[in-house]
């Protein structure tokens, strides 16, 4: 089905999904992959083997910044069991733009740009031999000055990571490490601040964090000398892996078939490649399958954490809570390559508010750290931390209720967004009203506890999508989608297909197809899967239903448009169509071979109606003034899902965002030594929250339909991580009695703030 057959709805008329009585959508059945996962039958990235398989290990730079003078592989190659060593010379040449950046990150050429940067790789008959051989690769370095802090990287005299990396957006006069620049806004911020009764400006910093997915990157590659290959890997987007690997290896995309394994978490960190081209290059060189699995330390040092930030935000407010002006400067360090989402940070920072005078500036800054990658709503959580902290402080000093102030200034349908256009139908006010009415908001606090609230915003995304739905002879359905299931999406797809076909949920099998089986599918990112693959599933099912109705019409000898679909059966559309008994799906499919052939529904398009989404979080925190330790004692997430297809998994996304936000706010951080090397590259030293660190996270699903989806779905995977940093910071600041400006709010940092407040 072509996109022009699907018309996103606009205006204020009741939407298609609004008021519809669903039979299956909105229920929460068990996930189809659940048994496989609890029994160990599910196959993740490292679970596949092949006859004659080799194991690979990567040689990584121990320096933050160093010129590579010489690589001597002879000792490694002489070791028994070693079959091949690859360096940059084994990859394609002549790449430009982002493909060059990715190749440079996958395998350094002339310069190692960060601690952990790959410089060579070895394939051997066992993982142990490969690791031993990697140690025998002798790399001669000339150590160069390095910089890992965002403000230091922008300062005069900072070591230059790469001359000429800046794009056309950067004004003259900035340090060469500033590679992209964003400026937007409207009105007159100075006039707005002059109108205010109180203006607060503050400086905030956040450290880089890692997505912390439990499954390290892993792949199995097989590539022959003819350039044809197969790749099995854990990824959020295997068509993207196919595209990148083909470019980096200098082969055609169709020569490489990529299969996505089950995935043990991604959160944005598996939207690009790190090891797959290396395994393919080793396989091509040896003509044998090569398996490559990262250690946790490699995941921390050499995959894609978030950007770290340095931010200044200024907000003016009248005594009645009206915000008169907002201004922000957001500096994001994204590692040794362009790409830190400074533009997203700037555009999201003030989106929840209807304010006449705005200015937001973003800087994308390079440093000697790993190339940052997406992490749930990239850039937005940091923006909310700074903005919502200042709003909280204004409310405190003016004696105003924080939710009332947010309601007073909240963006609504028709409000001009901070990034320019007017909002379509949105649900921010509904989340604020639900938060205000929630028992949590009025519950008494104990001594030593504080309460914080915050709003958050994210755009969401559509992207290229291709789906195929084949009916079996018994009337069950096989749905093929191309978006790896990182959050229970197979259950949601099955529910939507079952709803349209009128068959039981259990009769729909959803498969994540490989790259040879469907058209291109954009990566599972941008909270797009339930929206875009869901929309595609609905349209593919409707395509199949049209064909089913056609078969019934032919059998009854009436026109196709005289047949409709109800409860899994073809029925005459009205009394004039004739008197026929309902024809169940299984009866039509049982004879489909003799009535025109297999029945398959399709949908291929780029849906562009992903509705933006808002959330409001309430947090209670307790701070121990002796140790600086914070306990989150109560947490409530209120978020607009548009329409919750599988409410339990929607709640899971809400809770997951809050849990990751708690880690980001309180403990997680990349710690670099003066030598530019990462100091805490294991989970013992990089502390993500465990179950005992978390309270029960309560959820409220708000449903304000998205006009761009047949059922009203909005993505929910990312918005849930936008408010937590600020909501927790506001709660901690209230509990500690001192404003916290820097994340993580670890015990030493809280003790330092308390000490400063006491005048120490």
């Amino acid at each position, binding site marked *: 089905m072509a996109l022009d057959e699907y018309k996103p709805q606009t205006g204020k008329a009741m939407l298609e999904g609004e008021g519809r009585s669903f039979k299956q959508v909105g229920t929460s059945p068990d996930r189809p992959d659940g048994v496989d996962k609890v029994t160990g039958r599910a196959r993740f990235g490292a679970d596949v083997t092949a006859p004659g398989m080799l194991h690979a290990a990567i040689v990584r730079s121990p320096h933050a910044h160093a010129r590579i003078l010489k690589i001597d592989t002879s000792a490694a190659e002489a070791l028994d069991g070693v079959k091949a060593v690859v360096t940059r010379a084994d990859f394609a040449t002549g790449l430009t733009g982002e493909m060059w950046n990715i190749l440079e990150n996958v395998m350094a050429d002339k310069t190692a740009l960060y601690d952990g940067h790959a410089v060579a790789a070895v394939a051997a008959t066992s993982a142990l031999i490969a690791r031993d051989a990697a140690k025998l690769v002798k790399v001669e370095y000339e150590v160069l000055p390095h910089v890992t802090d965002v403000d230091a990287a922008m300062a005069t005299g900072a070591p230059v990571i790469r001359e000429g990396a800046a794009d056309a*957006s950067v004004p003259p006069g900035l340090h060469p490490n500033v590679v992209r620049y964003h400026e937007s806004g409207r009105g007159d911020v100075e006039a707005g601040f002059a109108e205010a009764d109180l203006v607060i400006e503050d400086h905030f910093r956040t450290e880089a964090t890692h997505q912390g997915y439990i499954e390290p990157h892993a792949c199995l590659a097989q590539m022959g000398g003819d350039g044809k290959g197969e790749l099995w890997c854990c990824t959020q987007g295997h068509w993207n892996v196919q595209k990148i690997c083909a470019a980096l290896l200098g082969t055609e995309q169709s020569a490489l078939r990529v299969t996505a394994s089950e995935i043990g978490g991604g959160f*944005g960190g598996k939207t690009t490649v790190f090891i797959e081209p290396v395994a393919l290059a080793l396989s091509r060189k040896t003509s044998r399958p090569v398996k490559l699995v990262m250690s946790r330390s490699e995941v921390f040092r050499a995959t894609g954490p978030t950007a770290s930030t340095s931010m200044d935000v200024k907000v003016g407010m009248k005594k009645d809570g009206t915000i008169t002006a907002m201004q922000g400067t957001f500096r994001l360090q994204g590692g040794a390559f362009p790409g830190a989402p400074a533009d997203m940070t700037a555009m999201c920072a003030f989106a929840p508010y209807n304010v006449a005078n705005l200015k937001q500036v973003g800087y994308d800054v390079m440093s000697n750290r790993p190339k940052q990658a997406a992490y749930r*709503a*990239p850039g937005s959580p940091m923006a909310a931390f700074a903005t919502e902290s200042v709003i909280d402080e204004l409310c405190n000093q003016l004696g105003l209720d924080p939710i009332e102030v947010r309601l007073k200034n909240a963006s609504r349908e028709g409000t001009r967004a901070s*990034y320019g*256009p007017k909002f379509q139908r949105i649900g921010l006010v509904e989340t604020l009203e639900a938060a205000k009415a929630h028992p949590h908001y009025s519950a008494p606090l104990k001594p030593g506890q504080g309460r914080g609230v915050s709003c958050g915003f994210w755009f969401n995304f559509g992207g290229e999508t291709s789906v195929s739905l084949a009916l079996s002879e018994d009337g069950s359905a096989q749905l093929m989608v191309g978006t790896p299931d990182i959050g229970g999406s197979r259950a949601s797809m099955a529910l939507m297909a079952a709803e349209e076909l009128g068959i039981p949920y259990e009769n729909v099998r959803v498969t994540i197809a490989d790259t040879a089986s469907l058209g291109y599918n954009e990566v599972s*990112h941008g909270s797009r899967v339930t929206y875009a693959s869901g929309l595609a599933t609905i349209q593919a099912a409707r395509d199949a239903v049209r064909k089913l109705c056609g078969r019934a019409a032919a059998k009854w000898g009436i026109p196709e448009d005289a047949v409709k679909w109800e409860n899994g059966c073809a029925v005459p559309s009205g009394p004039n169509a004739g008197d026929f008994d309902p024809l169940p799906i299984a009866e039509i499919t049982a004879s489909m071979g003799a009535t025109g052939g297999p029945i398959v529904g399709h949908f291929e398009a780029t849906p562009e109606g992903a509705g*933006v989404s808002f959330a409001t979080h309430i947090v209670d925190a307790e701070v121990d003034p002796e140790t600086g330790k914070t306990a989150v004692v109560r947490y409530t997430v209120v978020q607009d899902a548009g329409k919750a297809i599988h409410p339990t998994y929607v709640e899971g996304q809400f809770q997951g965002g809050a849990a990751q936000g708690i880690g980001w706010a309180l403990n997680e951080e990349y710690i670099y030594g003066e030598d530019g090397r990462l100091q805490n590259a294991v989970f013992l030293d990089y502390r993500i929250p465990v179950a005992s660190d978390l309270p029960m996270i309560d959820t409220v699903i708000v449903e304000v339909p998205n006009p761009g989806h047949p059922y009203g779905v909005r993505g929910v995977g990312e918005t849930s991580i936008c408010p937590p940093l600020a909501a927790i910071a506001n709660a901690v600041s209230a509990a500690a009695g001192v404003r916290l400006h820097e994340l993580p709010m670890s015990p030493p940092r809280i003790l330092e703030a308390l000490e400063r407040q006491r005048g120490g």
Partner: protein
Amino acid sequence: MVEVHLWSGLRARAGGRESIEVEAETVGEMLDALVEACPELEEIIDGGVSVAVDGRVIASTRTEPVKPNSEVYLMQRIKGG
């Protein structure tokens, strides 16, 4: 004519203009016409932009329709995690 609003960081390239009017019936035609009207925008547009048409964010599809009375905003390319 379609009035295309620019984010403020682009205005220095567009001679200080906050918006540019172009003849276009689709997003792709609009972007091509913008470059023709203001060649200084070419690098930015080629680098990747999204477009909001009547509040609906079009991430990349050039065939999306644009009407003469549509409210059109040029935006930085939207991406996600």
